[in-house]
């Protein structure tokens, strides 16, 4: 990671996981792993967030909630699927109420595997998400500029 262009804020939501990954996401924010040293802050408000961390395979009732949270986040935004059940359903894939992966509900940019995903892996995923965020921001600015020229 050469440099970070902004201090991204995280939104974390448990999308029907076993909460093992959720604890690890929180563990990333606390001493020992401490992602706050990169300027990353955990927020509870989707309207403040740039990166959306979702854990778990998403069930039928949660699908609408995840979609709504995603829609509330301002552009540009990045979605990170944390844990193997967020990637494709994992051990819960055959369960009757699981739709099998976050990408069945919202578009996902970065996948972090593991059961439960280790904090190191989550930090790697977040750092990768920062790169995606930068690219999206550039594209977003270019599109905005073009829109201005066309007017």
């Amino acid at each position, binding site marked *: 990671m050469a440099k970070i262009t902004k201090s991204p804020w995280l939104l974390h939501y448990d999308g029907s996981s076993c909460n093992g990954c959720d604890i690890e996401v929180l563990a990333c924010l606390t001493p020992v792993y401490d992602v706050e040293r990169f300027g990353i802050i955990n927020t509870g408000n989707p309207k403040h967030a740039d990166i959306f961390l979702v854990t778990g395979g998403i*069930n*039928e*009732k949660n699908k609408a909630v995840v979609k709504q949270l995603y829609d509330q986040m301002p552009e540009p935004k990045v979605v990170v699927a944390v844990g193997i059940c967020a990637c494709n359903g994992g051990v819960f894939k055959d369960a*009757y*109420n699981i739709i099998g992966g976050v990408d069945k509900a919202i578009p996902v940019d970065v996948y972090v595997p593991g059961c439960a995903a280790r904090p190191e892996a989550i930090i790697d995923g977040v750092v990768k998400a920062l790169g995606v965020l930068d690219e999206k921001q550039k594209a977003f600015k270019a599109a905005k500029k073009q829109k201005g020229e066309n007017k």
Partner: protein
Amino acid sequence: MRENYELKILSPDQITIKAHSLRNKGARLSQICSVRTKDGFDLLYSYVIDYTFKNYKVSITEDAQIESITAIFPNAFLYENEMSELFGINIKYIALDYKNKLYDIAVETPFK
């Protein structure tokens, strides 16, 4: 050391009577669950008095209707809603009836 618990058989009309007498003895409702059998369901009511663990098994047919015990043990509402949603068991007079929307699942009575 393994716990010694009792498991007794009850008939469906004794559910509320037993619940009443246990409540008077100061029991706590520990759980209710159901098991699919060949021609119906087994309902298992578990109560705890101090360290004794009392279990009652009630065998019912698929279309039988049983009476809720929420009037005696208010915490039974979660267990009874769960049974009626997942197993399709017909329970009447539940105090807080979620009408099969406790978990709000996509499939109908998956355990039936």
